[in-house]
C-alpha cells in the first residue's frame, strides 16, 4: 500500500462512527467601528510604525519628503513616475496595498499592480505604504472576504520584530526595520 493510501485508510478507521460537528459562526463578522481610519492609524502606531493621515491632495508632497535622499524601488503600476531600483542596493520600496484592517493595524499586499513582488517589499530596509481610506475594513473577517487566495499574500503588522530575547519586543530583525504608512483620506 502506498503511504497515501495507508494514511487515508488509517484516518477512515480512526473516525469511523464518530459524529460530525456543526460549526457555530456567531462571532462578529462585521465589527462596528465608528472611525476605521482613526482606529487603523492608532493600531499601526502601536507597532511603532510611522503613520500619517492626510487628504489625498497632500499625499504626493508627503511622499516626496519621505523618499528624499533614498534610492527607492517603485513597482510597476504604482501611480507615480519612477524608475526601478536594484533589490540589493535600494534603500527602500514604495507600494500601495490590497486591503487594510483597523482592529489589528494590518496591511495586506496581494502583489498586484503597485505592490511589487514579495521580495521587493522584503529586502530593502524601508517600506513606505500608501493606504486609501476606502481600503480599510474594520476586522479580519471582512479582509478575508475581500482577498483572493489564488494570489500570493503578505500580511504586514508593523515593522519586523522579535520577542525572542526575554520576551522583549525588538523592532527590526530581517524584514524592513522602518515601516511608514500614509493613509490617504
Amino acid at each position: 500500500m502506498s503511504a497515501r493510501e495507508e494514511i487515508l485508510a488509517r484516518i477512515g478507521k480512526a473516525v469511523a462512527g464518530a459524529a460530525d460537528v456543526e460549526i457555530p459562526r456567531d462571532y462578529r463578522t462585521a465589527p462596528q467601528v465608528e472611525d476605521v481610519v482613526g482606529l487603523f492609524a492608532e493600531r499601526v502606531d502601536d507597532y511603532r510604525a510611522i503613520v500619517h493621515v492626510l487628504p489625498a491632495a497632500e499625499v504626493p508632497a508627503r511622499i516626496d519628503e519621505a523618499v528624499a535622499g533614498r534610492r527607492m524601488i517603485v513597482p510597476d503600476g504604482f501611480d507615480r513616475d519612477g524608475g526601478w531600483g536594484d533589490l540589493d542596493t535600494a534603500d527602500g520600496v514604495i507600494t500601495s496595498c490590497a486591503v487594510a484592517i483597523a482592529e489589528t493595524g494590518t496591511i495586506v499586499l496581494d502583489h498586484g499592480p503597485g505592490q511589487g513582488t514579495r521580495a521587493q517589499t522584503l529586502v530593502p530596509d524601508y517600506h513606505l505604504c500608501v493606504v486609501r481610506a476606502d481600503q480599510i475594513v474594520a476586522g479580519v473577517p471582512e479582509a478575508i472576504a475581500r482577498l483572493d487566495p489564488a494570489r500570493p499574500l503578505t500580511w504586514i503588522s508593523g515593522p519586523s520584530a522579535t520577542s525572542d530575547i526575554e520576551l522583549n519586543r525588538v523592532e527590526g530583525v530581517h524584514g524592513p526595520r522602518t515601516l511608514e504608512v500614509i493613509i490617504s483620506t
Partner: protein
Amino acid sequence: MSATFLGMPGNFPKNAAKAVQDSQLRYNLRKATHTIRGKRANVVGELPDWQELRAAGKAIKDHTLRNLDRYLVQLEAAVTRAGGTVHWARDAAEANAIVAGLVKATGETEVVKVKSMATQEIELNQALAAQGITAYETDLAELIVQLGDDFPSHILVPAIHRNRSEIREIFLEKMPKVPPNLTDDPPALAEAARLHLRERFLKSKVAISGANFMIAETGTLVVLESEGNGRMCLTLPETLISVVGIEKLLPSWRDLEVFLQLLPRSSTGERMNPYTSMWTGAVEGQDFHLVLLDNGRTDVLADEVGRQALRCIRCSACLNVCPVYERAGGHAYGSVYPGPIGAILTPQLRGMSSDLDASLPYASSLCGACYEVCPVAIDIPEVLVDLRAKAPHAAAERAGMKVAGWILNDHQRLARAQRAASRLRGLVPKRLPGPMSAWTDTRDIPEIPEESFRDWWERNERA
C-alpha cells in the same frame, strides 16, 4: 521522534527535580511567562466575541478531524492544480527521506529553515546532516539554540530559558564575524543576528518550512511569524519544501477569519503577528513541494478522548500559564512539545513504553489553567486523567489499588481499616520504604487522626 530527544533518559519528576535547583532558569522562565501572560490577557480582553471565536475554532477543528481523509484529498488536488507537488509520509523516517531526496535533486548541500515544530519532531536537521546536507535555522531563538548546541524549551520561544547575557556569550563564542564589543542589549543582539543571516538568505537556493494552516478548498499554505526570516526563506529560494502535520488542515478559506484572530492573540499576545505569508502552489516561479506527515497522528485520532489534542494550533498559551512548566522548564518534558500540551501530545504520539513518556501524564497539578486559555478549548486535564489510567502501572501499585478498591467498596471493611489505621498511627514513618518512596519523596504523609469521623459520629450523634 526518539525518546532520547533531549538526552534525558530519566522521567519527568527526576528531570523537574534537577531543573528547579537552577535559580537562573527559574528566574528567566518566571519573568518571560508572566510578561506574556499579561499581554495575552490584554489583547484577548479587547475582543467581545472571544468565546464565540473559541467555540468556532474548536468546532472547525473537530469537523476537519472527523472528515480528515476527504479534506486531505481535496487539499492534494488543489495544491497539484496550482503547480505544487504533494508527498505523503507515514513516519519520520519516510518524511526525512523524501526531504533529503528533494534537496539532493537540486544539487544543493545547504538549506535555510523556517522554525517548524514538525521538522523538529522528525529530527530533520540530524537526518539531513547524515546525508551531507547542512540545515541553517533562521529564527532568532532557533539560531540561539542551534549555536549553543542546546535544545528548544518552549514551542514559540525556544530560547526562553536563556537571558540576554547568556545569549551574548553564545554569540561571541559561536558567531563568526561578530563585533567583539557586542553588548547584551536586545537590539544589539538582534542586529548581530541580522548581519549573520542576511548573506545566507540572499544566496540560498532551497528552503524548508512547516505551516500553521493549510486550506483544503484552495490549497493555500499559511505561515505566521514576526522577524521576516520566514518571509525571506519562503520567498527568495528557488525550491520550497514544506513539511506539515496532517492535522494542520482547515476546510475553507473563510475559516482563516477565526484562526487569524485566535492564534496571534493567544501566542505572542499581539493583535496580529508582524508577518503572515500565504501561498497557493508554485508562486512566482518557485518549485513547491508539500510533505504531509502522519507520524503517529492517526493513532491519536483513533483515541476518542485524546484526539482533541490534534486541535492544537501550537500557540503555547498553555505553557505560559502552567505552574508546573514555569518551575520545571521545557527540557524536563524530554520532547519538542513541552508544557501541558506536550504532556498529552507526546505520550500519544510516541506511546507510553518508555519511563519518560509514561511519566508525562503526571506532569501536572490538574489546576485547569491550560484549558481556560486554550483558544481551541482542548480539555487538557481530561486527557491527562484518561492517559494516567492508560499508562503502565507497577505490579505493587496495581496490587495496592486492588486492595484499596476492595476496602472502599464495603463500608464495614472501611470502618475496620480506619480503626486499624488509627491504632497504628504512631508507627507510620515520615517516608515510606521501597517503591512507595516515590510518593513520599515529594509529599508529606497526612497525619492519621486518633479517631475516624465515622467513630466520632457514632459516639456523639447516636448517643
